[in-house]
Structure formats: structure tokens, C-alpha cells
């Protein structure tokens, strides 16, 4: 299984710390550092989920601490939109998730990792993996 985390660089200054917290070797974790969680657009979340990824997560700052003032707020709106969209097309909205934390809060980060792990265990592999054209979709560059 595979998890992709889009992490705001203010909220998670060291993506390596996030990787180190992840102890499930059988699940591939990819952490992509972003300048702000609002960099990640809804289409990016959906297209990521359409690959071989089982869970997509966005980590941002608390709204009052966002460097771009409105960035975290907008990221929340996009997440809600993405969930609604997934529900509308008959997929599990829980395949995408979002957490906010105070920058540098290691305990909160560990709690987020635990939450991601728990969510992944409850969801299992993405149904898109078993879709008939999944192999072809994965091979498209």
C-alpha cells in the first residue's frame, strides 16, 4: 500500500522527521514538501488518488498561524470540496484527509501519523487498485 502526504513546510519543517515516525515498512510513505497547504489543489488530490495511492493526506498549519493568512483556510475548503466530489462519484471520501498543527509540535505530528495509520488500516487497499484498467493507468507516464 502507499500513502502520500502533502506537508506544508511551515507545519513540518523537516519532512524526514515525518518519515522517521512512520514505522510500517510494508506501506510506502511519500512526503512531498509544499510551501503552503493551499498549494495542493483539488485536482491534484483527485489525480493522486487515481494512481496506485491508497490514502492522500494534507498537513497544514492552524488557520491563525498560516504564513499566507488565508492559505490554511482555503486548503480546508478544498478538502471539503474533494470529499464531496469523491462521494458524488461513489468513492470513499475518507481516502483523503487533512490535519493541522502548530508548527514544530512533535507530539501533534506523531498523533497525525497514528491517525493516518489507523485510517489506512480501516480503509485497506484502494478499490481503484482492483479496477480493470488500473494496471494500464499505473503504467501511463
Amino acid at each position, binding site marked *: 500500500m502507499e500513502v502520500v502526504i502533502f506537508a506544508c513546510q511551515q507545519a513540518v519543517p523537516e519532512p524526514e522527521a515525518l518519515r522517521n515516525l512512520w514505522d510500517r515498512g510494508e506501506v510506502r510513505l511519500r512526503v*512531498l514538501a*509544499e510551501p503552503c497547504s493551499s498549494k495542493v489543489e483539488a485536482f491534484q488530490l483527485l*489525480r493522486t488518488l487515481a494512481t496506485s495511492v491508497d490514502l492522500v493526506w494534507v498537513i497544514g498549519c492552524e488557520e491563525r498561524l498560516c504564513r*499566507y493568512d488565508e492559505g490554511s483556510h482555503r486548503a480546508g475548503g478544498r478538502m471539503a470540496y474533494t470529499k464531496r466530489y469523491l462521494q458524488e462519484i461513489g468513492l470513499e471520501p475518507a481516502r483523503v484527509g487533512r490535519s493541522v498543527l502548530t508548527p514544530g509540535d512533535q507530539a501533534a505530528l506523531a498523533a497525525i501519523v497514528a491517525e493516518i495509520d489507523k485510517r489506512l488500516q480501516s480503509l485497506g487497499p484502494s478499490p481503484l487498485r482492483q479496477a480493470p484498467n488500473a494496471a494500464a493507468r499505473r503504467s501511463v*507516464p
Partner: protein
Amino acid sequence: MPAKYHIHVRRVPPRFSPVAKSTIIDWGEGCLRCTRCVKEQCPVDAYRKRGFDRSQFVDTIDEICRDCYRCVQGCPRELIFKAANPQFGQVGDEYWTPEILAATWYQAETGKIPVSGAGYGGPFAGPGFDSFWTDMSEIVRPTRDGIHGREYISTSIDLGRKPMFLTFDDQGELEWTPPPLLELPLPILLAQPSLGANPGRMQEIIVQAAHSLGTLAILARDRLVPVPAETTGRIMPSYTAGSLNLDDPLLSQVRALEILDHPQVLEQVEALKKRYPELIVSIKVPADGQVVCRVAELTAAGAEIIHIYASEQARGLGDCQDQHLKDLIRRCHLRLVEDQLRDTVTLLVSGGIALAEHVAKAIICGADAIIVDLPLLLALECRLCRQCAQNGPCPVEIDKLTVKRGAQRQINLMGAWNNQLLEILGAMGMREVRRLRGEVGRAMFIEDLEKEIFAPLFAQREGEALKREPT
């Protein structure tokens, strides 16, 4: 006059989106729906062409964007921003910086010299190769027809032992056969990097590139994969101390080989030369504390080529880790000049040669040619994540790259480097790279300049007391 040496570059687009230096943050939710949106006025049409890279999960808009800031400035509700891309800062390391990687990717894709645009915002001096400048005093006007229109500037070098004099018999014939020489059209040899997924494929790519460029590919003999017969002559097999077998069939098919230095290396070279007199032998010497003495010793004993290898960060090895490769080359060169043997031997250097300017600077310090390794891997879109060293998956699937595509990207990189070398030589008023060797008069060392400029300002005047005496 011989035909001009020309490297045929051809654009090879990347298979994966290169990591962009900056990124666009687009808050489309608050859009006013202007009649003419700034996104439609993008000069490179980035908003229409943008896509999604499925392997890296990134929006490809940053790859297309040319940082003109037209959209950022033009949006009436200020919904578009540009920010530094944190993913860019994570590629490479302290020496192989993201900027070096990005410049290498660009050159491998286009074969063109990277131009940074208006103004230079970076520092003018730094450690290592950045501690001296090349003297471009011969630039008097922009050339009308570029580097290819000038009088021919030769980048050829000779590999092998050069006799200091010739002797002739009564009939005017040479009394002895001069040692073999191999002329290369550019002062760069290719070598296999220590990293890389699918090393066998990498060897094929490097040999193919060396064949097209007319240079040699240094490859470890014990890991050599079969290559097309017409390219075998471009291989320079590298042997470790005990692995050389005189019955190796490859020895009769190649022009040169390399042996790692060891106490009996000279005896080994002698036996080899007795059986294969036309072979040119290079001795690979570590750039450690003994390098200067060892280079002088081997040269005096008749070595043809000496390859000095340093660390990946252009630092010395062993007890010389605090010294930069340029200083070690310079010391070896000056020692050979002192011994009046410099012209007899070919000095090759490797380790930390990351940019085109490093080629010229290593030659200025005293090398005849350089050996490039890691940039050949970077040319194949490598992110230098070093996962391949732990048998991890390659994020840019170098193992699946075709030989043709990979070789052309390496040829493009060497084409761009060669053009930059020609620019440097042209700006120095030189027509031959052979003349650049050890030519420190064509370089300005920051340390010397600082002494020259600031020392007189702060020096104590003769006879002047340190403190003013009380009146």
C-alpha cells in the same frame, strides 16, 4: 585544415518533471471571473498546458512557468503567488547543490549553455573552484557569429607519454619508436559513477556517448557488460591491483587501460607494455598526502598517464581531506615542472567535477584533462536521492532508460560543456586547450587579489608607531 570538431546536440525532453526552483500558489476559489483572466495572458500558456505528473504527484505548471510574474502582478484579487519550492531545496546535497542539478538537467535536455537571465544575484567568490576566476580579458566585442564562427579553437588533447626530445640516425630516421599517443577531441573522459540503478545499462549508455563524442569511457573491467563491437575501442578498462590478467582478450581490442596504483604497479606496466606495446597505460593514484611524491616518482619511472582521483566533493582522500582538488593538482603540476618532467606525462583528474567551469579551472591548475562521472548520472534526470545505493527504487526509473535516449542526454551535456570551454578559451584569447594547462596567469585567485588590494591599505607604514605617543 582538419574538420572542426562539433558535438551534435539534439533536444531530449525529460521523462519526469524536473523539480522546479519556484512554485505557483493559485487560489482559484476567490476568482472574480474577469472578462480577460491573467491566466489566459500567460506568455508560455502555462495554465492551459499544465498537467499532472503521475509518478511524482506534482502539478506540471512549475515546469512550464518562466517566472515572468505577469499573472502574479496582473490578478486584480491577488489570488496567485510565487513561492520557493521546498522540494527543490531537498534535491542534491551540500556540494551537489540543487542549482548544479538543475543546470545539469537543463544542459542534458537542450545541449545549450544555461543562461541565468538579467543580473547575477549570487556570491562572486567561494571555496574550492569558486576561489578563483578565469581571466576573460580578451573579450573586446560580442561575436557576430558565436563560437562556431571564430577561428578554430582546438579542444584536442593527447593521452600518453611524450618524449622530451627525439634522436635520429645517420639516415635521418628516428632511432627509436616513440611511445603511442592517443588524441582525444575534447579534454573530457567519461567514467561510470559510483551510484545509479542498473549499472549495466549505465555502462552501455556511457560507451555509446563516448563513441559519439570520440572520447574514452573508463569502466571497471570486472563489472563490464557486453557492448556493440564498434564501440569496444572506446572502452578504457579499469583494473584493481590484482585483477589484471595479461591473457584478457579485451586488451587486444582497446587503446588504453587503467590500473589502480599499488607497490608493484611499475613491474605490472612493464610486463603489459612488453606484450602490448601499443597500449597506453594510466595509473590511478588517490589524492592523499603522498600524491605529490607518488606522481613525481611514477613520472620519473616512465608513467604515461596518471589519474589523480579525489572524493565526490572534490576533496583529497585520507590525510588530505581538508584540501581541495585544485590545490592538489596544482602541487602535483608544480612538482613535475620543478623536476622538468611535466611535458612527459598526461595528468587526468576526477572527483567533484560538477560544472563546465570546473573543467577549465582544473586544467588551469595543471591537469591535462578531466574525468567526469557523477554529472553523467545527473544528465539522466537523477535526483541524487542515493536510494539506489541501498537497492531502493529509482524515483526517475533510470534503470528503464533506453541507451539511445540516455546517450544523447550525456552527449548534450558534454556539448554544452564543450561550448562553455570554447567560450572561456575564446575570451582568454587562446586557440588551444593544451596551452591552458597550468596557465595560472589566465586566472585571478581571490586570495592573491585580496592581498594585493587590501594589504597596502591596512599595512603599517614604515617607522610609524602602533599607538600614538602622548604629547
